[in-house]
């Protein structure tokens, strides 16, 4: 029998929130060669097998961009091998890096949250747009506003900009859905933005910051170039242009910039990134 069939996943349809909920059912346990008991520490094969499952699990979970909880990993994949979690996750990290050039990063030690970050320079846009492109385009606009405003921007300022693009709070947009929910909830959950109350503000006011994922997935250099290219125009022209872009699929401009950077200036950017890492380490 083919090795693959030994895993014998006969999953009832839609069992999961979990990828591997099927492993819980007794009949499938019988098919697993190593039985129910946890592996003795030297049995590398079973740890590697769990690590491989964890790799696939993380790749799928990361599609939503919402950080992954360690408790979910333990429940859905690691299961009875929880005491070997550190080794399993290290093996998984290694595989993610080796095969996918993706870094598994723990972003919150207290709540044990993880995200996946691509470690290679993005080729996003090389084949045109995906379903995420409009939202990422909008995000790029917001990130540049925050950056140009000195790394934070009040909610009022953000909405001023968004109104110029024809976006309004409470109004459902064909590409973005309800925009306020997108920028204060979805982008925040995904760690693209931070949305914090201004201390002591009455009535409460809020401001936006770059989220952790934005720092990793883009760079201030990219965002700066994007903003400059955009601001060459008169604000009125810019607004009209971008209202159009938003209505069609906004990211064409921003992604073209990123793509051009990747292709033409790849080596230069590598050096700049290296400098930036050194600089940041120096600051921290």
């Amino acid at each position: 029998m083919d090795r693959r069939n030994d895993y014998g996943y006969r999953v009832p349809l839609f069992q999961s929130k979990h990828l591997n909920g099927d492993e819980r059912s007794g009949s499938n346990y019988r098919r697993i060669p190593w039985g129910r008991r946890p592996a003795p520490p030297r049995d590398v094969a079973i740890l590697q097998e769990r690590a491989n499952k964890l790799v696939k699990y993380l790749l799928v979970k990361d599609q939503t961009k919402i950080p992954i909880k360690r408790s979910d990993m333990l429940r859905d994949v690691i299961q009875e091998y929880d005491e070997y979690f550190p080794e399993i996750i290290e093996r998984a990290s290694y595989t993610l890096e080796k095969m996918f050039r993706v870094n598994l990063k723990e972003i919150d030690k207290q709540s044990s949250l993880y995200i996946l970050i691509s470690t290679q320079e993005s080729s996003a846009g090389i084949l045109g747009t995906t379903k995420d492109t409009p939202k990422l385009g909008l995000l790029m606009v917001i990130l540049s506003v925050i950056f140009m405003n000195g790394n934070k921007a009040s909610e009022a300022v953000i909405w001023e900009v968004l109104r110029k693009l024809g976006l309004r709070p409470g109004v459902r947009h064909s590409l973005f859905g309800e925009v306020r929910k997108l920028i204060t909830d979805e982008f925040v959950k995904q760690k693209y933005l931070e949305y914090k109350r201004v201390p002591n503000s009455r009535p409460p006011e809020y401001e936006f910051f770059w989220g952790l994922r934005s720092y990793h997935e883009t760079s201030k250099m990219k965002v700066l170039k994007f903003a400059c290219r955009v601001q060459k125009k008169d604000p009125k022209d810019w607004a009209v242009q971008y209202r159009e872009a938003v209505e069609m699929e906004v990211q064409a401009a921003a992604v073209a910039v990123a793509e051009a950077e990747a292709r033409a200036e790849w080596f230069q950017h590598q050096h700049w990134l290296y400098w930036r890492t050194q600089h940041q380490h120096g600051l921290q």
Partner: protein
Amino acid sequence: MQGSTRRMGVMTDVHRRFLQLLMTHGVLEEWDVKRLQTHCYKVHDRNATVDKLEDFINNINSVLESLYIEIKRGVTEDDGRPIYALVNLATTSISKMATDFAENELDLFRKALELIIDSETGFASSTNILNLVDQLKGKKMRKKEAEQVLQKFVQNKWLIEKEGEFTLHGRAILEMEQYIRETYPDAVKICNICHSLLIQGQSCETCGIRMHLPCVAKYFQSNAEPRCPHCNDYWPHEIPIFDPEKERESGVLKSNKKSLRSRQH
């Protein structure tokens, strides 16, 4: 068997970038896949000769084998265009979708899937799907919401919509064929020529056998009097003609279909 005898290849940054981009898009047509491959070489290895696509992909697959995933090649049912997607080999359920969608959304997909498989045309009408909204597991879903969820499936390339009716996207067929054949063994339709899962196709009105449109096109090409391969009655439908891409020989297409079939269990 072929999996265990495959020699493990080596993955370079060219392959990794390719893999990551393919994953971002979910499913890609062959033309885009080739452009992608060329781009990846340009970024990482300008001077190297670009590997033949089949070898390039086999190389990646040999490395991915330990993860029970592979890049699979399929053909769209309506017009025979080759497509590629990264599919999960081990788990046969809709696990890949599972983390993106809520329980009631997945159940909606399952209802749509069952209607599609049971239908004569391979299409399920929006109305018929929405009428099942009350039977969904999980949180109660209104019809309006269900309409949006169906659109989400279309955007994520699990379903295709044509004039208010839904069928499976080629990607869904690639990913779920094994699962569908195992879960609905009585209802499922199979193509008489390539023996793969059939959702859309033509059928013989006498004996009932079915064929994919691209399979019909190839089987009956330049045949003035098409006859059913099973019962020999006249084939009652118009024979589609698909324009093969200029660079490809039909021989290449045939050999790829063979390797696709041989990968199925």
